[in-house]
């Protein structure tokens, strides 16, 4: 079995799987259960200055598919609503009882130097391995000038990070909000402030659904609803892009990354790490299935590493980053065509109608003499868009085959049809 131990921001972890700051890490009872289940670490639910916040009921909304599987959740819960002293005492106990497991203290305070520094020092004294600055919460706390209200202003991100770095001598993770136009601005700000790593993404601002019987956004609080933070597998593509942007941009590529956002399976975790994360944090998958999901995360990643011959996670961390390009760097002379394997085809006709109605009329449907229907790709019309390949319900029935061309690679800046073309000579 492959060795899954890893290091992020100088902190050694048994494996790359930490529970993100959220309800699952709000108290010792849960954290103990998580460690027993196999999680390498936890980011304790965000701590604030007393008196503790007060939460509402209900708190979660859901985005289901038609089989009632949860694709995403949004929540309007605030930071830990337990007294700071209670949380810190339980952190001390957990540190003592589970010395090999990582505990990071998530924290949030109003935009005042003293507040951040005092709170950071109190939490650091409880023995946490590091601090994570919650600059992302998109609901409730931001209306009080915290969370994403700070995270959306790069200058404040830098300032807060620096305050905390100055106050403590343990690693600091700056947690970024995705609710901005360009993640690089806040990542760079965190770097400038001295962050040892960035954590991303926090939840995405959202209204997840509407109760159309009562015409209220969900979750409903006594007849009214509000925007909340969206998470779960639905946000994974957004998070992956932001992680990759930070990892591939020269100004920010030195930042270590704790990847967060819809990680549900070991494969998701591998993808996050391949695109730049040194370790990952999981929340929604655990909320849906319980802490036991870590078993697949560990086992699946380990099996995959064995298959690929990787002996440490560092060997594939960032391995996909060099292949992430700007559109302008793509080879326009590369061509693929769909190929339908008639032996695997179950004749559902979906490739045909999708291409016919919405793409390039490149898949014909004809009656076979012996009965049934034959679906064939018209090569001249096929632009290799992948739509049929993606919608086909049968794996490996439609494949995308590269077309052999003798043309050399050519990017758009070099393309003869580009009116802005820069002469190569």
């Amino acid at each position, binding site marked *: 079995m492959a060795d899954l131990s890893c290091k992020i921001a100088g902190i050694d972890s048994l494996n790359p799987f930490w529970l993100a700051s959220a309800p699952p890490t709000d108290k010792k009872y849960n954290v103990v259960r998580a460690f027993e289940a196999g999680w390498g670490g936890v980011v304790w639910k965000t701590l604030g200055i007393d008196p503790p916040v007060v939460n509402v009921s209900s708190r979660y909304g859901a985005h289901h598919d*038609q*089989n*009632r599987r949860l694709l995403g959740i949004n929540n309007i819960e605030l930071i830990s609503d337990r007294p700071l002293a209670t949380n810190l005492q339980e952190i001390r106990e957990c540190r003592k009882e589970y010395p090999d497991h990582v505990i990071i203290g998530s924290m949030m305070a109003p935009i005042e130097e003293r507040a951040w520094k005092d709170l950071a020092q109190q939490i650091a004294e409880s023995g946490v391995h590091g601090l994570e600055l919650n600059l992302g919460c998109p609901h409730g706390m931001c209306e009080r000038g915290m969370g994403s209200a700070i995270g959306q202003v790069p200058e404040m991100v830098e300032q807060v990070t620096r305050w905390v770095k100055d106050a403590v001598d343990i690693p600091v993770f700056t947690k970024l909000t995705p609710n901005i136009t360009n993640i690089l601005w806040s990542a760079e700000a965190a770097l400038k402030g001295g962050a040892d790593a960035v954590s991303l993404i926090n939840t995405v601002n959202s209204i997840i659904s509407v109760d159309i019987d009562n015409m209220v956004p969900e979750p409903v609080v006594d007849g009214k609803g509000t925007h909340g933070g969206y998470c779960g597998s639905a946000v994974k593509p957004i998070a992956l892009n932001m992680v990759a942007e930070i990892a591939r941009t020269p100004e920010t590529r030195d930042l270590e990354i704790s990847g967060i956002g819809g990680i549900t399976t070991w494969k998701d975790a591998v993808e996050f790490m391949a695109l730049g994360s040194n370790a990952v944090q999981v929340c929604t998958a655990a909320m849906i299935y319980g802490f036991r999901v870590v078993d697949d995360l560990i086992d699946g990643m380990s099996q995959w590493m064995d298959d690929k011959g990787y002996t440490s996670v560092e060997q594939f961390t960032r391995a996909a980053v060099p292949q992430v390009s700007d559109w302008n760097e793509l080879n326009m002379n590369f061509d693929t065509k769909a190929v339908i394997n008639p032996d695997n085809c*179950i*004749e*559902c*006709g*979906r490739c*045909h*109608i999708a291409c016919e109605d919405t793409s390039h009329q490149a898949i014909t*449907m004809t009656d076979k003499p012996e009965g*049934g*229907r034959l679906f064939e790709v018209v090569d001249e019309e096929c632009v290799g868009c992948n739509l049929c390949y993606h919608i086909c*319900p*049968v794996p490996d029935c439609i494949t995308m085959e590269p077309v052999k061309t003798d043309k050399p690679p050519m990017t758009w800046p070099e393309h003869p049809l580009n009116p802005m073309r820069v002469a190569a000579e």
Partner: protein
Amino acid sequence: MTTLQAKQASKSGAVHGGAGHNDADDGFSDLHPAYSTLQAMAESNRCLYCYDAPCVTACPTSIDIPSFIRKISTGNPDGAAKTILSANIMGGTCARACPTEVLCEEACVRNVAEDTAVEIGSLQRYAVDHLMARDLPHPFKRAPKTGKTIAVVGAGPAGLSCAHRAAMLGHDVVVFEAKPKPGGLNEYGLAAYKMTNDFAQREVEFLLGIGGIEIEYNKALGKDINLADLKAKYDAVFVGVGLGSTNDLGLKGEDFPGVDDAINFIEKLRQTEPKSDMPVGNNVIVIGGGNTAIDAAVQAKRLGAEEVTLVYRRGPENMSATEFEQDLAKTNGVVVRYWAKPVAIKANGKLMGMEFEKTELDASGKLVGTGETFEVRADQILKAIGQKIKTDDLAGMEITGGKIVVDKNYQTTAPGVFAGGDCIKSGEDLTVQSVEDGKQAAIAIDAFLKTA
């Protein structure tokens, strides 16, 4: 046969197959219990929403199956029901009684992908039952009145389907029915465990909600009414009389007490409540290889017959009963004997049994007796060797091969008289085919009346 059906069939067999079962009424609860919302949701999401779907082509009424299933999966079961009923107003009965395993579900692409079809029949039932349970206004509107009146003979699936579509097209309809209740085969001819909870009557009531349809009961063609009068009095006539007579074995003693037509047995059982009041023999022989034979054999067993033997003159692959039906017989403890033909009815003051001769195919492929015989004891014999039309009632219409001849517009050789259902040769003798006949005939009659 799909896994779910097999499971249900074997479950029924296990519970009700035992000899000397004294709680017969239990044996007539739903053969396929209705889906819960969760089951409907899970199953509807198995549908791939095929384009130009093979299941639609396989349905005689061409219901847009992918569309109705998608509507179930999005939480729109009443919309799904309307999609079904717009093509097949008796979608509720068809969902229960159709041999889906050889129609829509046989064509399902999931058979290729996973060896298990989407349970289209159960989903259809879920949708139609959902709509009918809501007591909403009838889902279809009538076109402006045309002032034309159509006579429909027979309140079975063909006649009622024709009446409904004709009413929708703006015509007024009078239905003449020989029996005291409407529904035809749906009310009298389907096994009780396929049509529980008086569904046939509820469906007719629902169908009549369109308005413009009157039904006159106890009016038999050739006895209480005749075609000449109907032609004179109405703008068009539709004949959907079904098959009113049964084939004989041609053996001595066929009128002996205890020897009966299987359809009479099924009809009596359908009208008996509680079912345990229905008398049944201890040793029952059923002769035939169609679904009627299976229905009779399984129900005889469930009523408590000790031994039920189904005898068919050819092999299982030649039976017109579907594989599912054949399995249902076996899992209910019916003894099935192939390759044997009845040669004599044995009686000695009372019915004793039957003598059979083994059969085989000769070199030319013709079915012949081998000369070897055997006897099966019986105190009840049920014949299910086919039905035929009562030709003497249908003067003026050409009959060929025991069926009324119609052109592609369902018009008989008698001008202005249309026909459909089992009394014509259109497809399999199934409710769903009759519904399609009736619907298409109504559309043809409408065109006929516009040019007349």
